[in-house]
Each structure stands twice: as structure tokens, then as C-alpha cells.
């Protein structure tokens, strides 16, 4: 039986968490993630979710609490945004290095300064080297579904890496959409209980968190990288199995939409993908072959899949909600990096759009794509929706 309901994005995520039944949840409020932990608090208060729920003193503590809980063998969850994720930074590397399958949801939001509570993806993109698997949800349904996939992949003994499921703040967290919500019984069939092989117990007193000298450190990073490579395979498998199980959701690591023989490939992530799809369809009606690559996971980076979907295209255009000052958008860099090793290297254009919650209407994307198609844009990275600026001291 399918339970389909119109719910707010945050509530859908909280619902998914309730059916996944983490043993320990740590929470700290931050906009625009707060509705998720508020709803979970309600479940706890009403006895609808039986978990240890720790109201942490910061996001740094919240994720540290999960490190302790996960090492003790518990399934864990927290949720955060922006500054909160930045505050977790040090612990993110630690959790990944200790191979703890913590899963968190991230309501993507811009980073300060200047202070901005609205959506972009700078927060999670900036954690790309932390060793966490990163999923980006296109819509509320996917934000809900990816949680189950994230736990399954993270807890797989071949992987044992933490995951963050990212969803655009406000755009998805505060929007209402009809969502097919998990039933507890169906989730249990898809996601087995978490029973780690090694965990903190007095029965077998193991040491967690040893220091590694130069003699060993390289090999630790190496095995982490290999685990991430295995994660790529596991994600692809899990997506397919999820689809078979629930009859919905993407089946590819790097889903592509639009004409297979399109000569323009537009790559984007998160809710922006939906807008890009609309634009591509419209341009298709106008006679332009534009296909859309959806960056469902940024870590592991699906480089092979990227080369495959870019095979035969003349132009690749990346729209992303982040920028690395002094360089370019991170997704753009990585897409180009993947394509460097392809025989046919297409022209590459990258655009930062929608920073700090700026609306990204279809016409803006359409204009940028057409400028690239018509050769009116230089190859490389640009701010896609910036106004003319005069800098002043005061």
C-alpha cells in the first residue's frame, strides 16, 4: 500500500528518519533545517520514535555525539545547514576516517559573511574532501528516499563511510509536495538492521582512533579512497534495488534526461535540476538538442558516468550554487577534470547561479545556455546571474 501525502519537505525527511529508526539522534537548531529536528522532537515526545535523543550544545557536539554513538554500534542521525555544517568540519573528517556510517541530512544554505540564511550549496560542496558520501536531492520525494539509500550504502561493510543527504534549504525543506512516504515494514525489507563487526564493548575491548605515523597514514587515506570507489558501485546497485522495491526513483548514478543524441549537456545538482530540465525541454521544442545530467551524488564523483554521458556532445554547461574564489565552481572543475580523459573534449562553460537564495528563473538559464550555444560566451567559469557592480570602500 502506498502512503501518498502532501507534506512539507522537512516533514518528509523526519518521517523517513522515523521509519529508519536510528538508535541515537543528536539535534541542534539552525535555519532552514530546524523543521526536521522539530518534527523528530515531536515523534520522540509522543512516543512515535523510540531513540535516544540528545539536544546538543552545538552542531560540533551533535556530530561528536554521533561519533561516540556510532562507534558503540548505534545507528545515528542528525541534520544541519550552513554554519552548522562548517562547525562540524573537523568531526566530519574524523567520522569518515574512523569509518563510521553516520547519516545526516543537510538543508543547503549559504555561508557567512555576509550572513545569509537562504539556499545555495556552498556548505556541503565545501566539505567535499571530508570523506563523506554526498547525495543531492532534486525534490522532496528524493530527499526522503535517498535517506534509506544513504543508510544502506553507508552501513555496507564494503563501504562503511558516512553520508550526507543534501536538499536545497527552503526550496525543498519548506515546500509542500505530494510524497510517497515509507511504511515501516517496507523500509525494513530494504534496509537491514545495523550490526557492525567491531564496536566499543567491554566484551572485546578494542581501541578506536589510534594515531597513524607517516609509516601508515598514506595507506589509511588509500583504503578510504578505495572504499569510496566501492561506494560508487554500491550506490548504483542500491538505486536499482530501491527502484525495484518501491517502483520509483532514479536507477543511474548520474541520471541523464533529454535526447540521447543531444549536442549540449547541462550538468546541475539539487532542485536546480528540475528547472534545467524544463528549460532543456523548451529548447528541445525549439530544435536544440539539450540533455541534462543530474549530479545525484557528488562524492563519490561519477567520473566514468560523466565521460559516458558527455560522449559526443559539443558543449558541456554546468550550473552550480557554489564558487571557490580564486578558482571556479567545484562541480565545474570536477566535470572538466573527468572530461580531460575523454577522447572528444567538449567546450566547457560553468556558471555560478542562485547564490544566497537568489531565484533562478528558467529565462536566466535559457539565456545562458543559448549564449553558450551561439558562441557568445567565453569558455570557462562565470557568475551567471550577477548584476553590474561598483566596488566602494564605504
Amino acid at each position, binding site marked *: 500500500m502506498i502512503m501518498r501525502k502532501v507534506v512539507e519537505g522537512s516533514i518528509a525527511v523526519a518521517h523517513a528518519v522515523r521509519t529508519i529508526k536510528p538508535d541515537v539522534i543528536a539535534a541542534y537548531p539552525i535555519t532552514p533545517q530546524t523543521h526536521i529536528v522539530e518534527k523528530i522532537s515531536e515523534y520522540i515526545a509522543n512516543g512515535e520514535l523510540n531513540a535516544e535523543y540528545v539536544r546538543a550544545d552545538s552542531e560540533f557536539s551533535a556530530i561528536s555525539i554521533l561519533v561516540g554513538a556510532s562507534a558503540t554500534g548505534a545507528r545515528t542521525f542528525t541534520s544541519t545547514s550552513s554554519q552548522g555544517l562548517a562547525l562540524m568540519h573537523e568531526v566530519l573528517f574524523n567520522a569518515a576516517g574512523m569509518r563510521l556510517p553516520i547519516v545526516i541530512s543537510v538543508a543547503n544554505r549559504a555561508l557567512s559573511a555576509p550572513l545569509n540564511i537562504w539556499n545555495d550549496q556552498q556548505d556541503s560542496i565545501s566539505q567535499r574532501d571530508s570523506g563523506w558520501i554526498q547525495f543531492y536531492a532534486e525534490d522532496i520525494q528524493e530527499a526522503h528516499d535517498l535517506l534509506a539509500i544513504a543508510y544502506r550504502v553507508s552501513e555496507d561493510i564494503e563501504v562503511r563511510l558516512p553520508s550526507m543527504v543534501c536538499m536545497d534549504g527552503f526550496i525543498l525543506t519548506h515546500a509542500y509536495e505530494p510524497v510517497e512516504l515509507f511504511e515501516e515494514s517496507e523500509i525494513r525489507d530494504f534496509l537491514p538492521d545495523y550490526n557492525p563487526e567491531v564496536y566499543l564493548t567491554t566484551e572485546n*575491548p578494542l581501541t578506536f582512533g589510534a594515531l597513524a605515523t607517516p609509516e601508515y597514514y598514506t595507506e589509511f587515506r588509500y583504503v578510504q579512497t578505495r572504499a569510496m570507489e566501492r561506494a560508487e558501485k554500491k550506490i548504483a546497485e542500491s538505486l536499482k534495488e530501491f527502484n525495484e522495491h518501491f517502483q520509483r526513483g532514479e536507477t543511474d548514478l548520474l541520471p541523464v534526461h533529454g535526447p540521447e543524441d543531444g549536442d549540449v549537456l547541462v550538468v546541475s545538482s539539487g532542485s536546480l535540476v528540475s528547472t534545467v530540465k524544463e528549460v532543456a525541454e523548451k529548447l528541445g521544442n525549439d530544435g536544440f538538442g539539450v540533455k541534462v545530467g543530474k549530479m545525484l551524488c557528488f562524492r563519490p564523483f561519477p567520473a566514468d558516468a560523466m565521460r559516458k554521458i558527455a560522449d559526443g556532445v559539443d558543449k558541456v554547461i554546468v550550473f552550480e550554487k557554489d564558487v571557490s574564489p580564486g578558482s571556479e565552481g567545484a562541480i565545474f572543475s570536477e566535470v572538466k577534470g573527468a572530461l580531460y580523459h575523454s577522447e572528444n573534449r567538449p567546450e566547457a562553460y560553468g556558471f555560478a547561479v542562485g547564490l544566497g537564495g537568489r531565484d533562478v528563473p528558467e529565462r536566466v538559464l535559457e539565456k545562458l545556455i543559448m549564449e553558450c550555444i551561439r558562441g557568445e560566451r567565453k569558455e570557462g567559469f562565470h557568475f551567471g546571474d550577477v548584476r553590474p557592480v561598483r566596488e566602494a570602500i564605504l
Partner: protein
Amino acid sequence: MNPPDFFGPGHRACAGCGCVITLRHVLQALDGKCFVVNSTGCMEVVSTPYPESSWDVPYIHSLFENAGAVASGIESALKALGRKDEGKVVVIAGDGATADIGVQTLSGMLFRGHDVLYICYDNEAYMNTGVQMSGLTPLGAHTTTSPAGKVIPGNSLDKKDMPSFALAHKARYVATSSIAYLGDIKKKVRKAGGIVGPSYIQIHSPCVPGWGYDSSKTVEVARLAVETGLYPIFEYENGELISVRKIKKRKPVEEYLRMQARFRHLFKDERGKEIIEKIQEIADMNAKKFGLDA
């Protein structure tokens, strides 16, 4: 007749390390029935170079400043998984990890009332990184970041009052102890181990290279800190002062200071003399506050 040990030989602590003495007796007092959360610091670095460990109890080191939170997580997980009977969750953290960088996670842990025993082994500076001043470095001490210079004679601040910090959080049990009195450590750790809820014990643990004394004098120097009134030994239960280690004939602080290279500069000039007077005032105030004089 030999006590069972849960921290084995082969560790890389300096010869004569007072902190290891603390560790041994904390673990013995709990019969090894505990989960250790260790902050980054001397005890972590000397005990766990991969693939070796000196620990015979479940042990985790995460970061420098998050032991209070990691311990909260372990305790929560044990509860959630129905494994509370397995053992006590114990933090082993140095003074810098406790009083400076980790003060927030300690605060959260105490405030939320987790069933965790927090042990601060107090060697009065960041020893692992080469003797830098911490919030628990005493007045006048030379450290590499509070050096005794021509203008400034060592550390100009005095120890943060962490027991009061713990008391302000309504910790169930708060105590100080010293490696000079192993029975005292054992008694207090056992007591805290039996109390459900957060407790904090700060144990004075001398550091041979950091303080500058002969490695054989670790116990002697610790005893003098207590006998001069500079390290009062007391315990609070549910906010009430329930015991104080009395001193028969309180010794002048010079006896303690003179033993250690970190205070050597105080004996060289008038300015040093003034600081010694201030240190004596601290000891006198401790004596008054806790009624140390027998």
C-alpha cells in the same frame, strides 16, 4: 596481591610520567569495567600508535575538544541498545582539553546529565605539544608560551576553577585528587563510578619535562603541591562539600616551587619574590576556603 592493570606496559610516556599513574589507578578503581574516551593529548599519543594500543578497556580517541560529546554519545548508545550494564563511560582528558578547548562539550555533557565520569589529568600545561600555557597553568609558571622573560616573569594568570565550573552545572559528584594519594584517587573514582549522573574529578598529575624536576620525584612534587595548600584536595556530592584533605603543618609554597625549573626564575629577583608572595596568598586563600589547616 598484584593489582590488575588495564593500561599495559610498552606505552611511550616519558619516564616518571605522573599522568600514567593517574590512568592506572582510575582504571583499577573501575575494575576495567568502563569505556574510555580520551581527548587528544599526551595519554592518547603515547598509548595508541597504530597498530599498537596500551589499553585493555574499550577506548576511543576522536578529537581534542569533543570528549564530553563523544562520551555523551557512547552513553546514549548504551542506553538505546540496552547495554547500560556493560560499564561506566569515562573521559580521560588533559587540562587543556578540559579547561580550554573542550570546555563547551564538557559543559553540554554535565548539563544534560549524562552518566559519565570526567577525569581531568591536570599536568598544568599543553605538554604534548611542548609545554604551552593552558587555563590550568599556575601563576608564575614558565611555559613556552608564557616564558619567563626580561619584562614578563612567566604566566600572569592563575588556574581556572574547573571544579566550580562543574559544580555550577550541578554535577552529581565533583572532586580533586592527586597522584600523591593513590588511595584517595581510588576511593573517589569508585564513588563517582557508583553514582548515576555526571561527575568530574581533577587529578594533579606532575609532568617531568614540563615542570622540570628529576623523574624520580614525581610523587614528592605532587605531595608538596598538596602540603603547601596549592592543590586543595576535596570532594562535593550533590553540591555539598563533604570532605577535605587536612594538612597538619602547611608548608611554605617556596618548598614546592623551588623543586621545579618552571618556577626557577621566581627566585632570582625582587619581582619574582612578589610573585611568590602572590602564590602564597593563593595557598592561604585555598586554606581558608576549604579549611585545609588541621
